[in-house]
């Protein structure tokens, strides 16, 4: 019924945001606020549709999308770490540049404005048997799960250990949270930051591939619809911790699913769409208020 369908579409709509948020979170832990997640998602979606159509393999398409995101991430990172570019302006600029390049290729090579339809696009396969969808409540949701979603949630579960119990995770966090300490320990923080931005690109590209290949199988210039920024909102709200961030993504995915339902019920979808952004403002205010209060107490 309605509940299980909303659940099912929530899980599907969460995945791209979640993947981008995981990438952004890792990047942020290393001290880089990645505002270009949206561009990388868009690039991933674009590449995945073309590769899926040409090779006929969803796996190759997904990997190509992740590689495209990672490559853009590398360039972005080099501009920040080696050429000392301001990460916010460079990130916004990158969003324009990538959107421009994609639009350019789209209208030049594919002679289309905005939308790319390709023949024989291979969609992501569902893992579990479709007969599951007759199971009440969780059935349709389970039937929707494909490899990319599974990968995203496994990443969420593994990430806390990676960040707190591995050499790489600890060094990464030291680079972002205590640059002087990292420097004193002789860690090559620039290399680590580059690595984290590449990882962010990898995950965002994957998220883009999911956007394009989960069900629609085509590319559109407005496909990412600001999801890279919602992902930014998610890890800000989740305070860079994997599990809370994932829960926030789930909430945003749920809101997205509800928003689609609400359009038929007559509630304004545009206003519901602003909720994630409001939540971030509230979260920022809360965090700011707490730190000011803490400072005043010690003073």
């Amino acid at each position, binding site marked *: 019924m309605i509940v299980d369908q909303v659940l099912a579409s929530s899980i599907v709509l969460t995945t791209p945001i979640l993947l981008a948020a995981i990438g952004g979170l890792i990047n942020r832990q290393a001290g880089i*606020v990645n*505002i270009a997640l949206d561009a990388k998602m868009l690039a991933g979606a674009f590449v995945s549709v073309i590769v899926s159509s040409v090779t006929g393999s969803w796996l190759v398409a997904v990997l190509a999308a992740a590689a495209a995101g990672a490559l853009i991430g590398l360039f972005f990172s080099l*501009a920040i770490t080696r*050429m*000392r*570019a*301001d990460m*916010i*302006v*460079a990130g*916004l*600029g*990158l*969003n*324009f*540049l*990538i*959107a*421009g*390049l*994609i*639009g*350019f290729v*789209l*209208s*030049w090579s594919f002679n289309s404005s905005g939308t790319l339809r390709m023949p024989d696009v291979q969609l992501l396969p569902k893992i579990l048997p479709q007969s599951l969808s007759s199971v009440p409540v969780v059935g349709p949701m389970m039937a929707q799960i494909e490899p990319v979603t599974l990968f995203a949630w496994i990443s969420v579960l593994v990430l806390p250990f990676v960040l707190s119990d591995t050499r790489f995770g600890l060094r990464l966090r030291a680079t972002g949270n205590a640059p002087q300490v990292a420097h004193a320990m002789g860690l090559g923080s620039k290399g680590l930051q580059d690595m984290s931005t590449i990882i962010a690109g990898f995950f965002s590209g994957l998220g883009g591939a999911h956007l394009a290949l989960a069900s629609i199988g085509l590319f559109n210039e407005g496909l990412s619809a*600001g999801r890279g*920024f919602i992902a*930014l*909102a998610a890890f*800000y709200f989740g305070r860079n911790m994997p599990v809370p961030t994932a829960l926030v993504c789930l909430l945003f995915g749920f809101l997205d699913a509800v928003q689609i339902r609400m359009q038929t019920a007559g509630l*304004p979808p*545009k*206003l519901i*769409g*602003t909720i994630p*952004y*409001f939540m*971030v*403002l509230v979260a*920022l*205010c809360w*965090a*700011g*208020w707490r*730190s*000011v209060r803490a400072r005043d107490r010690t003073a």
Partner: protein
Amino acid sequence: MAEAATPLRERSIERLEKGFGLVFPFFAALVVASLVLLVIGKNPLLVFSLIAEEAFGSTNRIAATLSATTPLLFTGVATAICFRAGVFNVGVEGAFVVGGLGAAFIGFALPSSLGILLVPIGFALAATVSAFWLAVPGYLLARYEIEEVVSTLMLNFVALGVTGYLVNGPLLSEKSGNNVTPLIHESAELVRLIPPSTLHAGFLVGLFILAAYGFWIRRTPAGIESAIVGQNRRFASAVGISIPATIILVMVISGIVSGLGGASHALGQLHRFAEGFSPGYGFTGMAVALLGRNTAIGILFGSILFGALASAGTTVQLFSDIPLDIVNIIEGTVMIFAVVELGRIALFRRKAVK
């Protein structure tokens, strides 16, 4: 001899860097655009001369370029005023949009018997709404140290959502279908300067704002103080400049200028508010401010440059089948290289100090 030569040499290096710094991002963007054009087998020089021809070739084309320049004058100033005070306001886009809706609302909702008075009322409401819009993140930054980048970025989306809701709901025009407000009264329309082009009196307002900005940053205590805050906060507070007051001041002025820009666009260009009111004027304004190094003359040239690209881009697409997206590519490259360059200068300075 050597002692006398050093400051002279340093000064000339500084001058060289400054000049290079202004040209470099633009040059880099041209290189990137040329590469893209070469890949598709077009002669970049021919394309650029076609763009120049389309942007400045005749009175009509110049008027079209200046018309596209107009919103950028406002958003460029609104961004620069914050950037030079070290406040990273990326919310000009949102403030521009809410201001535009405010002015359009005055233009169609108040009785047309008010006549020409509708124009100043519209501008005043737009300025007020947008000033409050940016005063909020300004206050949050000044009082609670809440990152202005994120808060203003989020407010952009809120602005788009709320105005999008209003023009599809309460303020929807009954006559013309989707996503637009009714047209404003004729008396609220700004004068068109060179008909048939859409160049309107808002351009003159923009020039006035730009001149006022140039005066403010160089000749008023508040303007000079805000630059000091931008360069060195600890020094600024040591000499008795209030940092919170400066932050809120520049955010409010930025809001006022953005709002005036929105009003000019609504009353002069579109004569209503519509969804997609701003195709990223706020963000292009950032590129303009960065390219112009926050100086008045730099902003003037920057906004004419991007205005020319926008107005010529459309016709170039028609005549030479080169996609309009080349404009976005240039804009993005300019933004990236503008800040890369800033980093390089900082690197030079540090070496000089050592």
